[in-house]
C-alpha cells in the first residue's frame, strides 16, 4: 500500500558539492580527523535501527571520510560517551533524548524521532549555549491540511479532537486552516472516556476527521469507536501514522524511519562545525499513503499516492 519515493536527490548533490567547496577553501580536506557522530537509540532494532542505518549510509555517501558513526544504546550512553567522546550526538526516540538530556553534555545534539510537543519541551528546558536542533516526527500542519484539500476538494470543515498533548496546536491549526479556506471544528478532551461524546459532536459538524497524535485520543481503547463512527458518518479520517491507515483511516502523510535518517544525515553533514544551529525542522521527505479499500467503499475518487505526493511537494517545506 505504501510507496516511498526518494526525492531531493539534486538538492543532496548540491549540498555535497557545497561542502566539498567549503572544505577545499578552508584547506583542511583530508587533513582533519573524522568527526565522531554518536547515534543513541531508544531501543534496539525496528524504527530506531532503521534511522541509524539511514544516517550511517547517508553520511557515508554525502560526507565521505569526514564522519565516523558509533551506535549506542540509551541505557548505557553515559559510559559509552565517556569511553568514546563524540563531536556530535544524534538521539533517536524519546528515551535516547531524555538520557542525553540528563547527562547534558556540551556536545551538540540533534534529536530525531521525537514528536514536536516533546522536542519543543526538551529545547525549552535546555540551558543556553549548547548547540541543539532536531527533526520533528510530526508532519507540518500545512501538509496535512493540504492533503485533505487534495483528496476532498469540497471539504470546508475539518473535525479535530484535541487531547492534553495536542491541544497546544489548536491555535496554530486554526490559522493554518483558515489560510487555505478550511474551518476547524474542534472538541477538547482531557481523558479517553470523553472521546466518544466529543467524537459525536465533531462528526456532526465536520466533514472530515483529522487525527492529531495524542495518547488520550488515539489509543487501543478508542480506535474502534473512532474509525467505525467516522466511517458510518461518512467522514473520512486523515491519520498521522501508517498503522491507522491500515486500521481504516482514509489517508495520511508520514515520514518513514529511513526518510528521517536521510534528513538527519544531511543536517549533520551541513551543521558539523557550524557555529549557529537552526531551529528544529519538520520532516523534509515524506510519503503519502492511501487506504484504497476504504476509499472505494466510501465512494471517494482518489488519485495515486505518487500523484498526491507530487502535488504536496510545493508546500513540503512550509512551516519548518
Amino acid at each position, binding site marked *: *500500500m505504501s510507496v516511498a519515493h526518494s526525492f531531493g536527490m539534486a538538492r543532496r548533490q548540491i549540498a555535497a558539492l557545497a561542502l566539498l567547496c567549503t572544505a577545499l577553501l578552508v584547506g583542511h580536506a583530508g587533513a582533519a580527523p573524522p568527526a565522531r557522530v554518536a547515534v543513541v537509540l*531508544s531501543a534496539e532494532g*525496528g*524504527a530506531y535501527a532503521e534511522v541509524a542505518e539511514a544516517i550511517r549510509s547517508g553520511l557515508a555517501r554525502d560526507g565521505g571520510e569526514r564522519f565516523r558513526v558509533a551506535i549506542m544504546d540509551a541505557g548505557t550512553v553515559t559510559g559509552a560517551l565517556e569511553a568514546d567522546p563524540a563531536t556530535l550526538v544524534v538521539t533517536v*526516540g*524519546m528515551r535516547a533524548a531524555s538520557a542525553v538530556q540528563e547527562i547534558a553534555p556540551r556536545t551538540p545534539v540533534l534529536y530525531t*524521532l*521525537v*514528536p514536536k*510537543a*516533546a522536542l519543543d519541551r526538551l529545547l525549552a528546558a535546555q540551558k543556553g549555549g549548547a548547540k541543539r536542533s532536531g527533526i520533528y*516526527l*510530526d508532519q507540518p500542519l500545512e501538509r496535512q491540511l493540504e492533503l485533505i484539500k487534495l483528496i476532498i476538494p*469540497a471539504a470546508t470543515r475539518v473535525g479535530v479532537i484535541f487531547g492534553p*498533548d*495536542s491541544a497546544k496546536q489548536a491555535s496554530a491549526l486554526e490559522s493554518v486552516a483558515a489560510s487555505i479556506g478550511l474551518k476547524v471544528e474542534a472538541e477538547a478532551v482531557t*481523558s*479517553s*472516556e*470523553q472521546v*466518544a*461524546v466529543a467524537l459525536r459532536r465533531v462528526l456532526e459538524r465536520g466533514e472530515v476527521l483529522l487525527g492529531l*497524535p*495524542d*495518547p*488520550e485520543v*488515539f*489509543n*487501543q*481503547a*478508542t*480506535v*474502534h*469507536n473512532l*474509525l*467505525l*463512527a467516522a*466511517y*458510518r458518518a461518512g467522514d473520512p479520517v486523515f491519520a*498521522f*501514522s501508517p*498503522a*491507522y491507515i*491500515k*486500521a*481504516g483511516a482514509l489517508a495520511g502523510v*508520514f515520514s518513514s524511519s529511513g526518510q528521517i535518517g536521510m534528513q538527519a544525515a544531511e543536517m549533520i553533514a551541513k551543521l558539523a562545525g557550524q557555529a549557529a544551529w537552526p531551529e528544529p525542522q519538520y520532516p523534509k521527505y515524506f510519503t503519502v499513503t492511501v*487506504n*484504497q*479499500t*476504504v476509499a*472505494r*467503499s*466510501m*465512494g471517494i*475518487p482518489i488519485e495515486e499516492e505518487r500523484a498526491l505526493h507530487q502535488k504536496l511537494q510545493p508546500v513540503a517545506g512550509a512551516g519548518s
Partner: protein
Amino acid sequence: MLMVVTRCNGIKPRRGEANVHAAPAWRPAWLVSVWLSLVAPVPSAFAASPSADSGPGLTEQEFLADVPMVLTVSRLAQPIEEAPAPVTVIDREMIKASGFRDLAQLFRLVPGFITVAQRGGFPAVLYGVDDDFARRMQVLVDGRSIYTPSFGGVEWGNLPLEIEDIERIEVIRGPNAATYGANSFFGVINVVTRHAAQDPGALVSVTKGDHQVEHGVARYSATAGRLSYRLTAGYHQDGGFVTLHDTLRVKRVSMRADYQISNSDSFQFQAGHNQGTDATGRAGQLFDPQRELDIDSHFAQMRWQRALSADSELMLQYYHTRYRTTDEFAVALASPAVTLPVDFNSSATRDNLELQHTLKPLEQLRVVWGMEARSDKVRAPRYFNKPSVKNDLRRVYGNAEWRATPDVLVNLGAMWEDNDITAADVSPRVALNYRLRQGHTVRVSVSRATRTPVLLEQQADEVFQVGPIVDRVLFSSGGLRSERIQAIELGYLGQWLENRLAVDARVHRDEVEDLIMQTRRIALPPSLDNVDGARDFINAGDLTLTGFETQVKFTPGPGLRLIGNYSYLQLRAEDFNGGDGLRLSDFAALSEAMPKHNFGLLAIARFNEQLQGSLGYYRLSGAQWAGGDPLPHTTKLDLRLAYGFKFGANRGEWQFVAQDIYSDYLELERNNRRDMRFYLNLGFQF
C-alpha cells in the same frame, strides 16, 4: 460489512408503575453470568485508564505502534453502485426519524416492501408474492439466519434485539442465493448491529403511549483494554390492533462482546434472550379462544475473524438459536364434561457453522467463498404428529467480482446447496455494472434462486382425535419440489445535484416456478380422516412478476432530508399445474394478492440544534391479500417531534410520536384496524 458480495455481511424503569415489572428483565441469570465470566478475566483493565498502556504523554510510540485492523473487509460496505443487486440501506437516522418501535415496521422504508400483521405481535414483512407467513425472504442478524425452520418467516415479536443496537439494515431486493443461500428468494434482509465499542456509556429510554404502549430500554457499554462489551435490557408492551385481542408483552436481554485478540484477529460473542406473552384468539371461537401464548427465544453466536490484509479476511462463525411457543388450552366439546386438551406448542432450534474467506488474488479480482453446515430441529407434535422433525443442510458458495475495465464490473456467483428435504440445487448469478460516468451506473443482472419447502409444508400432519373420531386438519402428501425463481433486472443508480439527490431505479421480471400453495380440504381415506378432509401443500403453478421500483434520497438543503420510494408490481398467475383441492380460480387469485402500487415518504427536518421533526407517509393500493381479505387502498401518516437537551455533559431527548393520524388503517384483514395512537419517549445518554 461488504454487502451482497460478502455476508456478514433493553431494565425496566417504566413510568408510574415501576415496581410491577422491575425484576423480570434480569431473570435470565445465565446470560448475566456468561457476561460476567467474559468480563472477569480482565479485572485489572477496568481499574487502569486506557492511556496507561501508552505511557505518560506523547512519545514516538503514537506514531510507530501498530493498532488493530478496524475497518476490515467485512466491515466495509460495498458501494451501492458496485453491488450486483439493488440494495436499500436503512440507516440510524431513518430508523429514529420513522418513529417505529418495532423492527418489522421499518421495512415500510424499502421500495416494494410491505409490513402487515395477522395480529399485533406477529407482523410479517412481504416482498414479491407472499402471505402472512412471509416464507420467501432470507432474514439475517449479523449473519445469523432468523428465518424459522418450522413454519418459515420470522418471529419479529420474539427476537432478542433492541432497535437502539442496530447500526443499519441492508435490504437486497431480488434473489441473492449466490451469497446468502436458499430462501434468499425475493429478497434478503441483513440487520447489522453496532460494534460493542461504538456506544460507550449508558442509555436509558422510556416510552409511554395509549393502546397499552410501554417500552423501557437500558444499555451499558464500555471498553476495557482489548475488550468492548455491551449489555442491553428491554421491556416492551403494545396493544396491537384496537379490534383484536393481540397485546404483546416481552422482556429482552442481549449482550455483545468484541475482543481484539491481536491487531489482526478479533473475536465476537453475542447472546440474547427474549421472553413474553403474545395474546391471540377471538371471543366465542371454540377452537381459537382468547388466550395468551408464552413465547421465548434465545441465541448465542460466536465469530472469529482474521484480517489477512486490507483486502482479505477469514471468518469462522457458529451460532445456536431456539424459538419456542407454548400454546395450550382446552376445547369444550358438546358440554364442559367432554373437553379436548389442545396444545400447539412448538420449539425450533438451529445450529449453524460457517467459514468464509474473502480475498483479492489479482488487482482486478475480488473473491468471496465459503461453506456452511446447518442443522434444524423442530418439536411441534401437534403439527407433525411425531415428536420431532429435522432438516440438515450443507452449502458451498462463491462470488467473483472482476473489474474488467475501470467502468465495467462483472459479478459471477453461485451457490450449491444440499438438504434433507429436496434434491441439491445450484443457484447462479451474473451481474454487470457499467459506469456511464462518475455517479451514474447501470446494472444488468440475471439470477436464479430456490426456496426449499419449510418443514411444515413438507411434513405437516395435524391431527385431532376424540375417541374413535379422527380429524386431520393438515396433511402434507410430501414430495414437494423447491420453488424456483429466475430473475432478470435492469437498474440505474445516479447521483445528481452535487450528490444531494441519489436515485435508485430498476425494472425487473421474475419467473417463479412451482409456487407452493395450501390447498382447500381434500378427501382422505377414512382410515386417515373421518371428518372433512385435510389441507395439503402442493406445487401449484408458475407465475410471473414484472415491476418497477425506485428510491430517491434527496437533501434539498441543510437540515432537510427526504427519502421517497415507489413500486409498481404486476403479477400474472397463469400456469396452473392443476392438482387436488385447488381450483384455477384459487391460483389465479394470486394475481391480485399484492398491492400494485406501494408508496412511501419519510421527510426529516432539523429545525435547529434542539428540535427535529419527521413525517412518514405510506400508501398501499388495494389488494385481495393472500391469507387475508380484499381491502381497499390504505394510507398511513405518522408524525414525530424530537427535542434534544443537555444536562451537564450528558444528552437527553424528548420524542412525541403520533401514528395513523390521517385515518384508521386496515391491515391484511377487515378486522385488523389501527386508529390514531400517540406515544411519548424520554431518552438519556450518559
